[in-house]
């Protein structure tokens, strides 16, 4: 029996030292002197602008990647087409790439002397949008593909036999089966889009009040020795992460007991 307690104790101690303590400590430091210094820090003009940029990035990347994700999942599971294997592998690529490499690739393509250079994409918000779309691309696809595989095609065939069009079949039969998987994928996509740092950092140019997202603002504040500002904006991002976790845990069981 002692063995079981030893494993439990070691696991929980590891999680406490590595995860809970550092995150908890930053929360405590942020609200150490009450709520108002933290509130002032996150409502400073540059902080609000950074939050706005972050929301813009997510509001463009998430819907696009959701539509792409569902279409790509249908293509991968339901249809055979030349290059399907390559297609599948390329979808997974952003998961394995270093964000800095992603940023650099965009910088080379859209920067000075690049194939598509000279349109004000890099060191501006459009480049940051492209970086965010790139890194958050695989999540909806990866969540929807296994569900589509599992449900099979029998119901869709039945609908088609009864005279439903492809569009009707999708909305009446396929979509109700994959909507929770899509929702779960959207949550993961959103978390990644809001939290991306490396790729966005390379293409942003770090202009405070212009091309700084919230993650870049955290770094900027820390390097300007403004600990309260850095901790407070980090806490905003951490709270979003916690909300994501709550959504993840509430959405997941629905998928499993479906």
């Amino acid at each position, binding site marked *: 029996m002692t063995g*079981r307690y030893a494993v439990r104790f070691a696991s929980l101690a590891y999680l406490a030292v590595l995860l809970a303590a550092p*995150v908890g400590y930053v929360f405590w430091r942020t609200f150490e002197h009450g709520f108002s210094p933290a509130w002032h820090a996150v409502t400073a003009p540059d902080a609000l602008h950074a939050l706005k940029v972050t929301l813009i990035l997510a509001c463009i990347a998430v819907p696009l990647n959701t539509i792409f994700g569902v279409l790509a999942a249908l293509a991968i599971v339901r249809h055979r087409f030349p290059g399907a294997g390559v*297609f599948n592998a390329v979808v997974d690529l952003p998961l394995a*790439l270093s964000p*800095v490499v992603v940023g650099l690739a965009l910088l080379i393509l859209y920067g000075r002397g690049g194939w598509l250079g000279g349109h004000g994409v890099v060191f501006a918000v459009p480049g940051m949008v492209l970086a965010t779309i790139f890194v958050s691309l695989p999540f909806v696809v990866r969540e929807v593909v296994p569900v589509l595989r599992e449900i099979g095609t029998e119901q869709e065939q039945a609908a088609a036999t009864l005279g439903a069009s*492809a569009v009707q079949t999708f909305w009446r039969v396929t979509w109700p089966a994959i909507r929770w998987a899509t929702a779960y994928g959207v949550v993961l996509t959103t978390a990644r889009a809001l939290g991306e740092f490396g790729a966005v950092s390379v293409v942003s140019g770090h202009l405070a009040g212009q091309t700084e997202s919230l993650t870049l603002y955290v770094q900027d504040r820390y390097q300007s020795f403004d600990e309260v500002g850095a901790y407070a904006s980090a806490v905003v991002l951490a709270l979003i992460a916690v909300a994501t976790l709550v959504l993840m845990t509430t959405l997941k069981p629905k998928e499993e007991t479906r």
Partner: protein
Amino acid sequence: MAARADALALPRARRSAAPGLGIGLSTLYLSVIVLLPLAALAWRAHGWDAIGSDQAVAALKLTLFASFAVALINAVAGTAIAWTLVRDRFFGQSFVNALVDLPFALPTIVAGLTLLALYGPKSPAAVDVAFTRWAVVLALLFVTLPFVVRTVQPVLLELDTEMEDAAASLGASRVATFRRVILPNILPAILSGVALAFARAVGEFGAVVLISGNLPFKTEVASVYVFGRIESGDPGGAAAASVVILGISFGVLLAIGGVRRWATRHDR
């Protein structure tokens, strides 16, 4: 039966124009967003001599060693945590289960900042690892924590306890039961989790950048080296180093595929 139905359904699906449109649109999207930038990167990669520079080699070496160490620690810690979550029962278990996903949800720069706050120069615990190689390992451990746990957990859940009971009734010790009965079953999952953690660690940037101090030859990892080359106006050298990192990530992804095929070799 299901496979037959699939095969029969295909010609019907092909007749409609909608799937062709969907495939076309998603292929176009994927090409513009992912492939085109990477093609530009590969095309622009020159200054290969920069990869042979002492600083680049030091950064790559550190990245590989640290990622390898982190992968090994994860193999043990991740398996223990998965075990605690599946086989143990205690108050607050579902909270701990959700906590494991935190590194996936938390922005990496925030992860780095929190580690720096608690284990940096102003540490209230008097543990200061900032600007050392320990800091690199610590940051990588934070961001890679969920991988092994989340690959091993479902396998442990499905593993029947009957085999363990049989082993125990035949007089096997707990250690022998784990080594001879449980470990062979969960080993493929551990390996694939370890490989994912390794791939993630090789490319990590945000969590490392604040706490490591980015000292060349000492704490500068590969991603930070690439970032430095970009900042100093050498995109060619940065691209060349990127291609090396890309090659490593690809190799690991292929290895994961190999492990998965090996693990399911009896299923087919």
